[in-house]
């Protein structure tokens, strides 16, 4: 048996093992194990559920990340629409082939760039990052291109833009849910 403790206590018969719950009482031992297993199962499960599930919000308040953005005909080809900039922070761009949308957040430090029609560039006021119509950086300190967001059709034929799904990798961002051929 272990011998850790205050030295002067180790003198008398108190070191003798007590066998009330050990050998010689198999039934007590069994009951003890059953009780402890039940208790630990209960407390571990309760703790786990609390951390994993209770703390995870099931509903979020605030503006929805998904919104309906009207019908595709409402966006003329070759134009950048700033229609949803103020409310949702999204540019919708229609080319001859299809529609895609940019999240209006500069990849440098999170400022909001503006669309300059004359230069056909998105220009960030904070540190002068410029992006072209593809979203690629053409000037300034920004490390990566603008995020594109998921765009799809609602059952009624309107566009649905989901800002929570975003992509900036070349090759991925031009297809699938980030580009809607028209």
């Amino acid at each position: 048996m272990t011998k850790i403790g205050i030295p002067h206590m180790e003198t008398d018969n108190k070191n003798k093992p007590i066998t009330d719950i050990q050998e010689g009482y198999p039934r007590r031992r069994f009951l003890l194990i059953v009780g402890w297993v039940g208790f630990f199962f209960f407390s571990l499960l309760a703790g786990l559920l609390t951390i994993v599930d209770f703390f995870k919000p099931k509903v979020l308040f605030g503006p929805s990340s998904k919104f309906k953005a009207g019908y595709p005909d409402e966006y003329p080809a070759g134009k950048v629409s700033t229609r949803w900039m103020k409310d949702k922070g999204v540019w919708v761009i229609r080319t001859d082939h299809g529609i895609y949308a940019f999240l209006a957040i500069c990849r440098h430090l999170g400022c909001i760039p503006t669309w300059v029609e004359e230069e056909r560039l998105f220009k960030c006021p904070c540190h002068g990052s410029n992006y072209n119509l593809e979203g690629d950086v053409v000037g300034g300190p920004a490390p990566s291109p603008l995020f594109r967001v998921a765009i799809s059709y609602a059952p009624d034929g309107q566009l649905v833009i989901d800002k929570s799904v975003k992509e900036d990798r070349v090759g991925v961002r031009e297809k699938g849910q980030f580009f809607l051929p028209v």
Partner: protein
Amino acid sequence: MDKAALGPIHYIWFAVVGTALAVAIVVLCIKEYAREWKHHQAIAKRLQIKAVEEKIKTLESELPSVKEEMKAKYEERLRMTRMIRAQVMASPVKIQQIQIDSLKKVDRCTTCHTGIEDVDMKDQENPYKGHPGKYLQWHDIEKFGCTICHEGQGLSTDYMHAAHMPLRGLDRPWQKAVLSKYLIQSSCGKCHLDKEVPFAPLLSKGRDVIEKAGCSGCHKVRLYENQERVGPSLDLLGSKVNRAWLLRWLSNPREYDPQEGLIRPRMPKFSLSKDQILALEAFLMASGNETVLKEPAEGGDPEAGALLFRETRCVTCHLVEGKGGYLAPELSGITSKVSKKWLYSWIKDTHYFQPRTKMPQFNFSEKQMSDLVEYMWEEFQGEEFEIPKEFEDISGNGKDAGEMVNQGKKIFMEYGCTGCHAKTGIEQGRIAPDIIGLGSRDEERLEWGKAQGVDKYIGNWVFARLKDPDLLEKKAKMPHFPLTEEEMAAATMALLSDTGGDIPSQYVVSAPNQENYPDLPGEFGKIVDKYRCRSCHVVYGKGSWVSMHPLDGEGSEVRKEWLRAYFSLPYSLRPILKERMVSLKMSDSEVDLLVNFFTSVMVNNSIPGDEGTFTEEEVAGGKILFDKYGCISCHIMGKGGGYVGPPLTTVGDRLTAGWIFAYMKNPRYYEPWSIQPDYGFSEEETRALTAYLASCKEMKKNIRVSQGK
């Protein structure tokens, strides 16, 4: 000692309780995770996928047989449908909610009603059903949510707590349960504050009933705060009716005209004792003044009168033996009510007796008037009433006349007669409680009186109040209104739609406030007042919708010559309508003034005034279009045609080319209620049709009529 030290019993307890705890947490998890809405979402997902897959299958099977030029379009559709399928399959199981900050609402109804916006799910059962009708197209679900119309507890995620069941009392999970389809229209009235609410016929009917029954005379009712009194002034009643009639009328108005519903008369039945009626009668008859009545000239010609009666189209407003218009009183049996002298004086000087009546002051000649009175006296002869016996028995009860009159005045005020009838010298406010915000009253605080057995729902309370006021309150002052049950139900619904003004202004759809349109000034105003144009037409925003034709842009719409002829001798454009323009017998100078005013002032600036010139080809092209679109099925042209729209045989005489063009281009811009289909004509097509219609003239006849005058 044995109880103090640990014994076997403690170990058993420990094992049992430990196991029980483990079981309890498992049960708790099952209870917590097996939520109703998860089950519904799973089923809804299956249904949605099934519907989409069927679509994909049909598209795939049709694809090989599709023509080459359509192929690309088909493939695109297929691709889109597949994308939708992927979206549905990937949608996570989670609580859905619609958050509307301006309404301070969070609705989680779509957690179970997942397919509510899905057109393909319309035939499914609840809660998987798609919303019927086009209501969600008109009301974006993200902007309106669900409970603003349907009520119930939007935050809830299970059936019971969403208050689908109308539980009352302490068991109710939410104050307002989900409205059944019979009551849902009351929600429309929360935001739609105009009298006619589209696609809510019951609500519109209810609002009509509220207005006609004159609820606002005694109660303050939303939308009707400034409504005029619905009954006639009683100032000269003593000279108008006889005692016997009045006694019978006060005892039971329905006896005089036992028709069902709010047609006529509107007078409700008050629970008055015989003594009270006698006193009231004494008070009302005391207003008699024989000197204001004039005797008609001798020798009136009943036959000429009959002709005049028909020509002026009195039945547009008046009932004759239950047939005719509902704006004015029944005329048959009129002799038992009024004297000949009064009838004559009334026609001669209508607005002296009732300054606010809807009846125009007809411009009859002396002869015409005596003819008319003579005719009516013969034609509408009714039985002569005698004073009912029970009144004769107590009429001599020893009270002197002055006392009776005073007592009658008290009753007159106590029962709120002033709510509907004006009487000079008696002014008092509304005598009954406000019913503003009636829909949000708490059921538990209402007095249910004898109606203990009924479901304690506010709607039942209002209905019971209308059906039998005595049921809820002993000695209720509220009279019995002559309403049918449907009318009562509709009125109840309309009253419940006022839930207390918590609707943000951007949601409110309201009718223009008629208070902003005062009586018209000047000579024109005088004529409008004399002929009471606003009893039937809307003139500068104010008026009644008996005619669905506001007069504001009339000058741009019709030709001057036609207008002149029409004023002199009106005829009906649509023969199937019951309400027709009455013949007012205006003087020439009045007609001139009106025609000039219409054509110079009452014009719509968006319609060009000039007649325009059209080529023969255009006229011919218009004719072809006219035939192609089957206009003749609704309009008369020449010999044949339908009766739904106005006849077009001489439309060129009537309408200006500018108006025809503008109207054909966009029918519902000028008349939103028009049933004329919008064919979406191109500029050229519209021009051609205009040219054709403008060429349909027969001016000679009209000119002759106007010259003959």
